């Protein structure tokens, strides 16, 4: 019962993230939404580590890893975004098409 | 180095040397490109002459491991090997000689090519390697590899050095032949997977003794054999081409540079004949019998359809293209007869048409070069200005319509001789094609060479590019065939006459191959 609650939360969170990542045109929002999805995953990790079939410490470790990598990724992503913004004066995703044309 | 590998790959030397020549040095390129086609010619002729004096061609077989895939899960054998195997018999030898001869002549005729000569010759030589390899391969995988080499080389030669609609023609070529090859690949894959070998001789043995000892995989079911043969025939029908899969041929004939068409009409179409005989009749004789009637009917349709369409064309190249369709119908007629005369006729017709088509397109190249058009309605009375050229053109027309004493007749005679044994009524219908052949070839050639020398060229001059017309204004007289063009034409005419007068020349090397095949059919 408790597990289901956690999973439901993670699912909702993931879907919100996914929706945002797929539909928003502002890159910052997209990045935030990706963070939301990562956090949904983290919730799953921790929930399963506590209430799963084989409770243990592995899930916690993975969650920590994910947080660390998400931070790094956010840093790189935002750096790239800022570079892009300086160049093109925009942060819209669909305007990042200079390779296409 | 072994003989056959040398024969097949010797043009490679030319490609390598050409790479070091400056692209503007057209004289050296022409010279080197032509010289590179001579070694295979000499080697092929050597083999041909030796085989005439009792030399056994099997001695030339080569076989090496090429790819060794060890410990694959689905093959319980220790290793699965793809071998590099070359080997020839009388049938392939004829085609190899044809390829080598036409290769050299096409290289000589490439004098007319002015643009990007270096790349042109490199691809031309690659094409020759591919064609020689197709006939020399003793192994399905290598057959296919060489076939694809010709496909790519031909695609580029048409697409880059062709006429106004070259790209369309090249893509058409690629589309049809690519699909044909894909089908062929499926058949090859199934065969190899089912029998564990790609070697022709082993395949032959395996298919004929389905329960041979040591064979791992269950023999092909009867139904599977029909499907495989059907696939094979369809793949080669595209390459032949059989109506209604012929449209690509018409475009390629018209758009490709004439020396390339010499090779294309002369050799590439014949791969289909070779494939149908070697794989169709050779590997699936019993199943082929079931298809024979349909093939003969298709052949007659090809003959009449091509001939009737050739009647109406305005463009000489179109006439020749449809005449190719018609002549390839004779090949099908021979195969459909499925007796010795028929198969021999199919081979003869292939060789004969190779020579005749090469001659025709050699002359078409000269015509386009001199007058700037090959439109029949714009030409007339050329025999006055270009008597020697017209003489050759007339010879080509007579060869096309199957005049006895020239090669074409021998092919038609033997092929029809075959069909008259098995299906006389059908053969009689096909023989009507002989009348149409006379009509279309004489109409086209006489309109060009005979009649009034009206100043029809004047009007064509206006339509040509400014540079060209300027050149011809300063040089108002049309130049007749020159020595360097007349030599290949003369060689071709000599060969056409030789085959026509003494066909035993071709029948000799074929005899043993035919005997084996008839044994297969009779069994």
């Amino acid at each position, binding site marked *: 019962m408790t597990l289901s609650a956690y999973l439901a939360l993670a699912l909702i969170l993931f879907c919100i993230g996914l929706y945002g990542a797929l539909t928003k045109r502002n890159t910052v929002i997209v990045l935030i939404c990706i963070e939301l999805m990562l956090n949904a995953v983290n919730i799953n990790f921790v929930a399963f580590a506590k209430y799963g079939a084989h409770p243990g410490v592995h899930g916690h470790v993975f969650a920590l890893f994910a947080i660390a990598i998400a931070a790094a990724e956010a840093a790189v992503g935002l750096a790239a975004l800022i570079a892009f913004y300086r160049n093109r004066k925009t942060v819209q995703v669909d305007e990042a098409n200079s390779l296409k044309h | 180095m072994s003989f056959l590998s040398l024969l097949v790959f010797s043009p490679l030397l030319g490609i390598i040397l050409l790479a070091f020549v400056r692209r503007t040095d057209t004289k050296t390129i022409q010279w080197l490109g032509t010289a590179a086609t001579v070694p295979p010619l000499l080697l092929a002729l050597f083999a041909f002459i030796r085989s005439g004096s009792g030399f056994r061609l099997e001695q030339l077989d080569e076989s090496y491991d090429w790819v060794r895939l060890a410990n694959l899960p689905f093959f319980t054998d220790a290793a699965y090997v793809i071998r590099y195997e070359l080997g020839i018999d009388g049938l392939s030898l004829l085609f190899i000689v044809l390829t080598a001869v036409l290769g050299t002549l096409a290289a000589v005729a490439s004098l007319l090519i002015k643009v990007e000569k270096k790349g042109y010759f490199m691809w031309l030589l690659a094409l020759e390697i591919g064609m020689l390899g197709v006939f020399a391969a003793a192994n399905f995988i290598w057959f296919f590899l060489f076939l694809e080499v010709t496909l790519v080389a031909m695609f580029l030669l048409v697409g880059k050095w062709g006429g106004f609609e070259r790209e369309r023609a090249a893509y058409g070529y690629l589309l049809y032949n690519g699909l044909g090859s894909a089908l062929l690949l499926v058949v090859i894959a199934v065969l190899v997977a089912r029998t564990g070998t790609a070697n022709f001789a082993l395949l032959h043995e395996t298919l004929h003794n389905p329960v041979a000892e040591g064979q791992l995989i269950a023999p092909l079911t009867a139904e599977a054999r029909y499907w495989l043969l059907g696939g094979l025939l369809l793949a080669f029908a595209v390459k032949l081409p059989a109506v209604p899969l012929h449209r690509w041929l018409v475009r390629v004939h018209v758009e490709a540079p004439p020396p390339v068409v010499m090779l294309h009409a002369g050799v590439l179409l014949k791969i289909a004949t070779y494939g149908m005989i070697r794989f169709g009749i050779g590997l699936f004789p019993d199943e082929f019998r079931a298809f024979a009637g349909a093939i003969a009917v298709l052949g007659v349709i090809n003959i009449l359809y091509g001939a009737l369409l050739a009647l109406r064309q305005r463009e000489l190249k179109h006439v020749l293209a449809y005449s190719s369709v018609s002549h390839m119908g004779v090949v099908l007629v021979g195969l459909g007869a499925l007796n010795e005369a028929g198969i021999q006729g199919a081979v003869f017709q292939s060789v004969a048409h190779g020579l005749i088509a090469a001659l025709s397109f050699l002359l078409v190249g000269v015509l386009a070069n001199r007058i700037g058009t090959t439109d029949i309605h714009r030409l007339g009375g050329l025999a006055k200005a270009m008597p020697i050229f017209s003489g050759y053109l007339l010879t080509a027309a007579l060869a096309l*319509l199957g005049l006895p004493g020239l090669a074409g007749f021998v092919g038609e005679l033997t092929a029809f001789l075959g069909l008259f044994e098995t299906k006389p009524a059908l053969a009689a219908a096909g023989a009507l094609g002989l009348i149409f052949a006379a009509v279309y070839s004489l109409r086209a050639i006489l309109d060009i060479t*005979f009649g009034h020398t009206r100043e029809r060229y004047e009007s064509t001059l206006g339509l040509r590019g400014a540079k060209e017309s300027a050149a011809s204004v300063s040089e108002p007289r049309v130049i007749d065939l020159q020595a360097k063009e007349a030599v290949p034409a003369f060689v071709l005419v000599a060969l056409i006459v030789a085959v026509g007068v003494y066909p035993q020349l071709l029948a000799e090397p074929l005899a043993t191959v035919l005997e084996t095949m008839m044994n297969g059919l009779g069994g």
Partner: protein
Amino acid sequence: MMNLAWVVPLFPLCSFALLLLFGRKWKKASAYVGIVATLLSLLAALGVLAGRLGGTTYEANWTWMQIGDVTLTAGFSVTALNAWMLVVVAFVSWLVHIYSQGYMAGDERFSTFYAYLGLFTFAMLGLVLSPNLLQAYIFWELVGLGSFLLIGFYFYKEEAKAAAKKAFIMTRIGDVGFFIGMLLLFWQTKSFDYDDIFRAVGDGTLSPGMTTLTAILIFIGAIGKSGQFPLHTWLPDAMEGPTPVSALIHAATMVAAGVYLVAALFPLYEASEAAMMTVAVIGGVTAIFAATIGLVQTDIKRVLAYSTISQLGYMMLALGSGSYVAAIFHLTTHAFFKALLFLAAGSVIHAVHTQNIEEMGGLWRRLPWTAPLFLVGALSISGVPLFAGFFSKDEILAAAWLNGSVELFWLAVAAALLTSFYMFRLFFLVFTGEARHDGDAHEAPMSMVGPMVVLGVLSVASGYIQTPWFGSFLGEWLTDGAYHHEAAPGWIAVVATIVSLVGILLAWLMYGKRTVPRDWLSARAPHGYELLRRHYYVDDFYRWTVVALVSFISRLLAYVDRYLVEGIVRLVTGTVSAAASAGSRGQNGQAQTYGAVTVAGLAILVVIFALTGGYWL
């Protein structure tokens, strides 16, 4: 000597090859190459004939091509028939070679002309020597080639071009019949050799139906080549060629090849009643049919051309009536007198530079050699007694009578009447009356007159090799002594004589003395006259039926090719490229779209997974 018979055709072949290579350099000397080569041929042919006189039939064969166990051979044979034909052909060819030296003098392509003559003579001699059907077919087509090249000799004339093309195609139609018949025979008898075929006919290997079928198919070839109805229309047009060519090819030799072929295959024909009947009827019909057209032509060569067709019809009639000897006899005499007539006509044309007989007249004095020689030829072809034509025509009439076909007999008699009428119409219009042309006409040089004189002598003398009075040399020779002359009723000769004299008389009344107005016939039956003048509309009939049909089918197929076949291809390529462009619309470079597609795909997979409850495979 007979074992060397193969050299006979070789000389003209050498002449052809040499003149093709060096003719441009030799120019006028080319004529001597040709003349010497044919003279050598003639001498060799005479040697062969002499050898055959003392010996029997000789045959030699070599392998030409092997097909499995079957060996096709090439070779030559010397029988009575072909030894005789060799001499006739070589002789006429030699005379024409000499004549052409004068006639073609000054032509730009003088050497080419001689080269073509050489090629033709080679092919014709080769045809005669052939021991089997296949080889005969090969040379059969090659003589057609020679004819084609020579008809189209004046290639810059549109008419010559059309005539050459027509000649080749019309004879090709016949040849295909020959081809089919030949191949059918091969599978019945397993051989192309005449002897094997006759053996098969004799021992019944060949069923009667098959015999008739193949005989008629091969006869179609003869119809084409010998200008028989209904494939005759090319022969009058072939008169576009130089006149010596008309004499050699379209009068004396090639057109007689059809007759020769049927004669060479005579045992095959004899075995089939229906085939014999076909040959006889076609021959008889052609004889009268062409003769009527000949009545109203105004071109001197066309009159002679229709007369040739008519005479060839006579020969076919003789063959069909079972008289092989009469046909060959008439073939021989016809070769001489028709060659003479053509050469004389050439001499006239040479003198007045026109072929229209309305523009000639009064040439008797101007052409002191040509005119009497033409008269000899005309008397001979009309069948006036003591001339060669009389004897050979008489044989044919007798044969037709003895064969029991009364209708054909009277048809032939009527044709004989017409023949003498139109020949003398020609004679009176050209040589008598007042001159209707400008400029003066000169007699031809001796190189042209000489051959005509020789032919003139032969047009009389050649009749005496087979007469009721001095014995049947030719008959005995051709049948190796087995010949027995069936006595024909004596009145036949009388009828023939009367008929020919009446024809001459009528012509004299109309065109010589002019007591009967010239438009007597055309005024009374204008439609009939028009019908004749337009050659019974045969050409128009072909144009509106066969030609129209073929070109309709061809046009139809062109549309099928362009729209249906190409359309299907377009449909396929169109579908593929439409699918491709639809696919590439998804490939828009937007990571978000890709993500959405990925999620959608994943969702579908999850749903499927959930529904099926596990892996399938």
